[in-house]
């Protein structure tokens, strides 16, 4: 089944809650309301014609301009050999959505990761704590407005570059010129004359 057929079947089952299908240029995705997520997912998994038995990928996209965090789920069915994409838009200030762990176990770690990096709270995840970042890390690094702290527990997060240690060349040249002017007559002032 292609995405349009899947969405048609989904609409048949859930009506308007199946959301809207995006334009057919790229991977078509169904945009659904966050509160319907669990129900839609359950329908996708349990319906025989759809039979999405695997949650392949679960990611968030931060859109600070639109003040929303987009949750993207890539589903796949080993039984029917077709894939589908679900999207839902969460409020960026209060990103909360139901966890899909009861439907697909693989969601547990994927949701933990997104919680860690975006601060999206997945209600119902049995073990929602930081996965990749240290437990006492403040902030959600993959948000667009995140600013990296300069140090963590006294460890600097900034590394100096050897290239920064140098004098800017125009300043150096001025200095060179000045120093030579003192010693040499003004007529002998250096001029950039090409090859060394």
């Amino acid at each position: 089944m292609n995405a349009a057929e899947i969405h048609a079947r989904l609409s048949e089952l859930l009506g308007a809650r199946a959301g809207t299908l995006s334009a057919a240029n790229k991977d078509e995705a169904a945009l659904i309301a966050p509160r319907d997520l669990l129900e839609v997912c359950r329908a996708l998994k349990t319906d025989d014609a759809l039979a999405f038995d695997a949650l392949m990928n679960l990611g968030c996209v931060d859109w600070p301009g639109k003040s929303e965090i987009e949750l993207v789920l890539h589903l796949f069915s080993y039984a029917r050999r077709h894939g589908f994409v679900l999207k839902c838009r969460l409020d960026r200030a209060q990103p909360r959505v139901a966890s899909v762990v009861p439907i697909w176990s693989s969601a547990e770690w994927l949701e933990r990761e997104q919680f860690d990096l975006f601060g999206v709270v997945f209600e119902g995840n049995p073990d929602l704590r930081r996965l990749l970042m240290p437990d006492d890390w403040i902030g959600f690094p993959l948000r667009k407005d995140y600013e990296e702290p300069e140090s963590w527990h006294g460890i600097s997060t900034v590394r100096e570059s050897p290239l920064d240690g140098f004098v800017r060349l125009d300043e150096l040249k001025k200095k060179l010129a000045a120093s030579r002017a003192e010693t040499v007559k003004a007529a002998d002032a250096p001029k950039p004359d090409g090859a060394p």
Partner: protein
Amino acid sequence: MSAPGTDPSATMTSGKEVLKRIEYSGEMLVNMGPQHPSTHGVINFLVQTDGEEMTRAIPEVGYLHRSIEKIGERCEYAGFMPYTDRVDYIAAMFANQGWAMACERLFAIEVPKRAEYCRVIACELNRIASHLISVGTMAMDVGAVTPFPYALREREFINDLLEELCGARLTYNYLRIGGVAFDLPDGYSERVLRFVDHFEKVLVEFDRLITQNRIFVERLRGLGVISRALAIDHCLVGPNLRASGVDWDLRRDLPYSAYPDFEFAVPVGTGAVGKTGDAWDRFWVRTREMQESCRIVRQALQKLPEGPVMAKVPRRLKAPEGTDAFSRIESARGDMQYYVVAGPGEMAHRLKIRTGSFNAMGIIEKLSRGIMLADLVALIASLDVVAPEIDR
């Protein structure tokens, strides 16, 4: 920190509270890792154990987190290619290909046929190299040291070949968006064929040394059995999934690149010595996959078409903001997925990498219940998790 509702302290339990979460009843708690010799990189397992028999092992990851996804948002599309090498440094070619394919989809670039063949050859050689590390370390984790140097020796031959192809032994950066960086060098196919012939014999020897070894079989049979349903539910991918009896290979079932041109078998775990989906099956599937990779390499070299190795790629890669592309490739550790959302400029707005090891880690806690301490290292090794791929 943008909004009050997302304060981490309000919603999350700290690592120390893991101890409260587990049903702790006086067993010994041991930290296995992050410097333990056989945790395959820096991973920590909080092992709750009653003598030799474990209650469970709770994986704690993140020690190798280099925020590659964030870097991907601050890097031009082409400039991100070297970073993908670091996603999975044991099989960097696949990480390259996943990124290249995601971008090619995003910008609708058609890759020349010869470039696809070059990609297949490089990737399959890399698959052999990666599986060699996997089976070698797995043998070492159950105590047989010698198969590991043998595996590394063969891997060195592949590294030499890949070095000749792209100039680096580990972080290849060989693929480009729209093709590959270099064509095959002169006389390359003869050297690859010589290696493949040699390697197939070595594989037989390797089987005799370790795969069929009685102690090895006894150690791994019936260990960490993952049923078909459990594997799919936990979204295991690649060899781990196939060992559980799921006959699924992206290269065959959702063909990409030049794979439709080749004939190869997809080894599936059958429970030859124990139950389908046990640790031995996972080991065995990897050894068979190396054989199949040899077959693919041979066919690719035979059918190699003429032509350019690089498509016409626009100087500035740009896509409308918000368009997204998704790519799936069959990496050495299974289905590797890149999800890229185009940003306003020449950079991605968001990049998500889903790797095989990440999913495999999620299942360890479930499988580790009630096995023995010595089995835990074999279990971890059999899932072939690679720390950089989990943390990225």
